[in-house]
């Protein structure tokens, strides 16, 4: 059984004003087959978490680690992480001029498996997955994401998820910009991958909507670069009704506490202060 562990992850991002700290000690453990939803307001660092796990060069892990089955991936290249079994369904998939979907899928599958897939079964697998995602066959000969609508791009992400069969997938706001029908189709694709390969999912979203189709085992509230509360699916319903306001306010108070703690003791007190604030949120 595979397990993905995020341990005390601190991540900064390069900006024009210099490095900016976004993640401030994220802890998460995801077992294979589990679905974890990360919910939080805009700017809380949800997408940063997704990119950091995938290894995007713009995001720097300043401390903490990412472990897959005990193997430390924190310093691994982006492609090595993917070959180890990680997958990121992107919020904004980019266009790749000159590379057809067919060619791209085959190249990726070959890279991940270490050998080319057997042609006959592979062609059939691609076709079956495309049909299940209601993608026209003509897509296969189009360049990756070139001229795709927002919904088509998201389907193309899930198509890759189904075919590459990773151990863990991070879905970064895969639900954004989808109408109800597309949301259902995409969710069905994720659920198929879960049941076929016992996929572990880290589902990042703003809204409860997608959780009606992909049932989470755990819901984590993410504010100011940290998980501030964890619970079951009922937590998502509560968030839907009450919003993030209480968490944001508590987080601001915590930040103030950190600032004063730092002012008082400029050494290593910051992390402790943050940890001590979290339980008060649960109360």
């Amino acid at each position, binding site marked *: 059984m595979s397990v993905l562990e995020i341990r005390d992850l601190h991540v900064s991002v390069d900006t024009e004003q210099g490095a900016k700290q976004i993640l401030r000690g994220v802890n998460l453990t995801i077992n294979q087959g589990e679905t974890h939803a990360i919910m939080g307001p805009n700017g809380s660092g949800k997408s940063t978490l997704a990119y950091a796990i995938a290894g995007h060069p713009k995001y720097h892990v300043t401390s903490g680690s990412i472990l897959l089955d005990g193997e430390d991936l924190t310093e691994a290249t982006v492609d090595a992480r993917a070959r180890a079994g990680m997958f990121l369904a992107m919020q904004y998939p980019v266009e790749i001029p000159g590379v057809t979907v067919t060619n791209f899928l085959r190249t*990726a599958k070959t890279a991940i498996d270490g050998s080319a897939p057997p042609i006959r079964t592979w062609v059939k697998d691609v076709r079956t997955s495309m049909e299940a995602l209601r993608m026209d066959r003509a897509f296969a000969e189009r360049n990756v994401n070139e001229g795709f609508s927002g919904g088509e791009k998201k389907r193309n992400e899930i198509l890759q998820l189904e075919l590459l069969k990773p151990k863990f997938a991070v879905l970064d706001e895969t639900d954004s910009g989808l109408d109800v029908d597309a949301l259902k189709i995409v969710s069905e694709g994720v659920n198929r991958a879960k049941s076929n390969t016992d996929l572990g999912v880290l589902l990042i979203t703003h809204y409860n909507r997608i959780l009606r189709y992909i049932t989470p085992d755990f819901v984590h509230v993410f504010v100011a670069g940290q998980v501030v509360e964890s619970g079951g699916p009922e937590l998502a319903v509560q968030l839907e009704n009450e919003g993030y306001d209480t968490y944001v306010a508590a987080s601001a108070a915590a930040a103030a506490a950190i600032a004063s703690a730092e002012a008082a003791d400029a050494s290593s007190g910051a992390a402790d202060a943050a940890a001590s604030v979290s339980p008060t949120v649960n109360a």
Partner: protein
Amino acid sequence: MSNVAPPSQAEQKPHTDGGWHNVPVQTRSERFGSVDVADFVEPTGREVDWKLTPIRLIGDLISGELDGSPFDDALTVAQPVDGFALSWIDRTDVRIGSAGLPEDKASANAWSHFDQALAIDITGKQPSSEYVVSRSGLGTVARAAHTVITAAPNSRGIVVLENSGDARIAENVEIVVGEGASVTVVTVQQWNDSAAHLASHFAQVGRDATLRHIVVSLGGGVVRVNPSIHLSSPGSATEAYGLYFADAGQHLEQQVYIDHEAENSRSRVKYKGALQGEGAHSVWIGDVLIRQSADGTDSYEENRNLVLSEGTRADSIPNLEIETGNIVGAGHASSTGRFDDEQLFYLQSRGISEEEARRLVVRGFLAEIIQQIGSADVEERLTRAVEAELTVV
């Protein structure tokens, strides 16, 4: 087309009632042409056909003395192939001047200086039979050359002009395609980094004949290949393809002119290029003229550039002049796209290594042109050459 030069550009008198003599020629059909280098004024770098070319690097080729002697030592021809013949011919040979007229000073300079022309005759009937003429090691002395390719009526075949090694050369290549013929002319530039090569290709395509013309520029410091293809007979057609890969410091240019003179003529132009490295520069200018006489014309031109790194520049200028509304179609397209870090991240996030990601993108992009050549040998060699370009960063 007449071989008689119109009045010299230098002798043309400006109007006396204003500064209008500096107004550039607005229509491609009225561009000045002459075989005599003295008829052209020295380009300043502001002219429409020179403004994107580094003329300071090629002044000797534009207006200097050129060695016009035959270059047998540098010439290699694959074994005799049925349906093809090669010979040196005199300046007075009737074949010379039958396909076009120089429209820039470098072209006229080459025309003024060549001693003998290389004649390649296509008489065969096998579409897939190919004739490879290679030039290698032309040296560093500025040269002039002239080539005349003549395809007999109803002939078939592929001529490949291959270029490598050192060179400083200005040249003209005439291509006359006889009635009902269907031939392919490929010119491949894989010169050394310091080479300079200015070539004008002039083609006349006969009745119901087709010319497939393919320019592949990979190596050389300054390489400028300008094909002018005249569809002067009813039913004449051309497919003009180009592929270039500009590395750091390389200037690769092509000015393509398709002249639809006759009715029911058809043209397709597709040039694709990749650029990588500081100072890599590509220029594509595509002029299509559909004359009043060219009813039923069907024309489309496009240029696509793929930018692989910072510090490169791709100029892409499609021009379409239409003098009759009675046509089947006319269109153009141009795009210049980047292969950037986000694309690399995307491909890598699917397990593909950085090196393979670049190869995948460039190979996919350029394969479309390579596949048009129709010679398995040449296609394979060029695919390898393009991949070799990728490893030079």
